[in-house]
């Protein structure tokens, strides 16, 4: 392949990549909207590190479908269980993604979803325990243009 052919092939892909984005989010959330969403979950309590494992791709090939799962270490007994798991995405116009209320009958504190990310953003998971304590984990997911091909 010569330079010209490579250029042509590259341009063919580029032209497509430059086409309208997957998500036409008007704008990202205001920072205080994120703070508000966090406060609504934690009730103002400071979240501790640990117990929460957040799995998400480092690079989201497609911001429209980002697989995210959350696992929280807990015995899930009547006396000690995870009451809720919440997923937030800072840069989405509405940072709240999903909240699940759990009971000991779940047997394990686990939530897995496919979610949207309008742009590169921290994704946060908050877990509220039955004793009221709050744990959190965070991971930055890079969203690239993708969308072509």
């Amino acid at each position, binding site marked *: *392949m010569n330079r010209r052919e490579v250029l042509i092939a*590259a341009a063919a892909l580029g032209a497509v990549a430059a086409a309208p984005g997957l998500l036409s989010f008007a704008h990202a959330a205001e920072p205080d909207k994120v703070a508000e969403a966090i406060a609504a979950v934690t009730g103002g309590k400071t979240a501790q590190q640990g117990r929460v494992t957040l799995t998400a791709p480092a690079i989201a090939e497609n911001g429209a479908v980002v*697989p995210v799962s959350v696992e929280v270490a807990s015995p899930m007994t009547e006396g000690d269980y995870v009451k809720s798991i919440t997923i937030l995405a800072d840069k989405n116009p509405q940072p709240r993604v999903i909240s699940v209320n759990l009971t000991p009958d779940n047997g394990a504190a686990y939530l897995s979803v496919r979610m949207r990310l309008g742009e590169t953003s921290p994704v946060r998971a908050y877990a509220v325990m039955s004793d009221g304590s709050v744990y959190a984990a965070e991971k930055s997911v890079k969203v690239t243009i993708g969308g072509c*091909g």
Partner: protein
Amino acid sequence: MNVKTIIAALLAALPLAVPAWAEETQSISDADLALYREGINPAEVLRNTGGELFNKKMGPENLSCADCHEGQKPKAKALTGAAAAYPKHNKNADRVMSLQLQINNCVEKGIKAEPYKLNSAEITALTLYVKGLSNGMKVNVATNGPAQPWYEVGKQVYEQRRGQRNLSCKTCHDELAGHTLRMQKLASIGAGASHWPAYRMVNGDTFLIEQRFKQCMSNARMAPLKEGSDPMVALELYVTSLANGAAIETPGFVR
């Protein structure tokens, strides 16, 4: 300079939005890709719909596909494994038929109803269902005998440079295979046909392989061929023959 750096340099010079190109030469990792494939493929829901359609009585004689292809006294053979041989030459029609065309043939001649549009959700659903009856079996399309001229045409369509950018399928899928452009791993199609119809995350929808061809054609600025047209079916035969021997695994889940 290797080809990759040439591509990067040329792309950077293009009047296109290429934000942070240098960072983006990295494609998604296999571990990340595996995360995407966990969970339910939405196309499975469409396949279930295909199963319902297969059993739905239609037309003037109130017949379903199942009435002829299943049951105590079937009028035609069971379809387990049938899809593995498609596209396949049909003697009566004297042409190679894609599975979609064969299904429509049965709708028209067996059920005596209006055939489905070849880009409709109904034909995709039925194709998924019938192809699913061959899951785990090996692709086995004939490229000789009466199918041979179709195979030759398909190969030609695959290799022929067309359109504004003078590209062929072969340019991207063979000559440039291995390179990553804008998160796009250019890869040989290889046995890819074995996982179509497939759900595309990018579009959030399920497509037939001929629709995927059309998407590549329009991305590469080639005039798209029509679904079910002779050159399109020939191309499907050629690309599917590349998967001969590979296990059928549908629906696929691709980017």
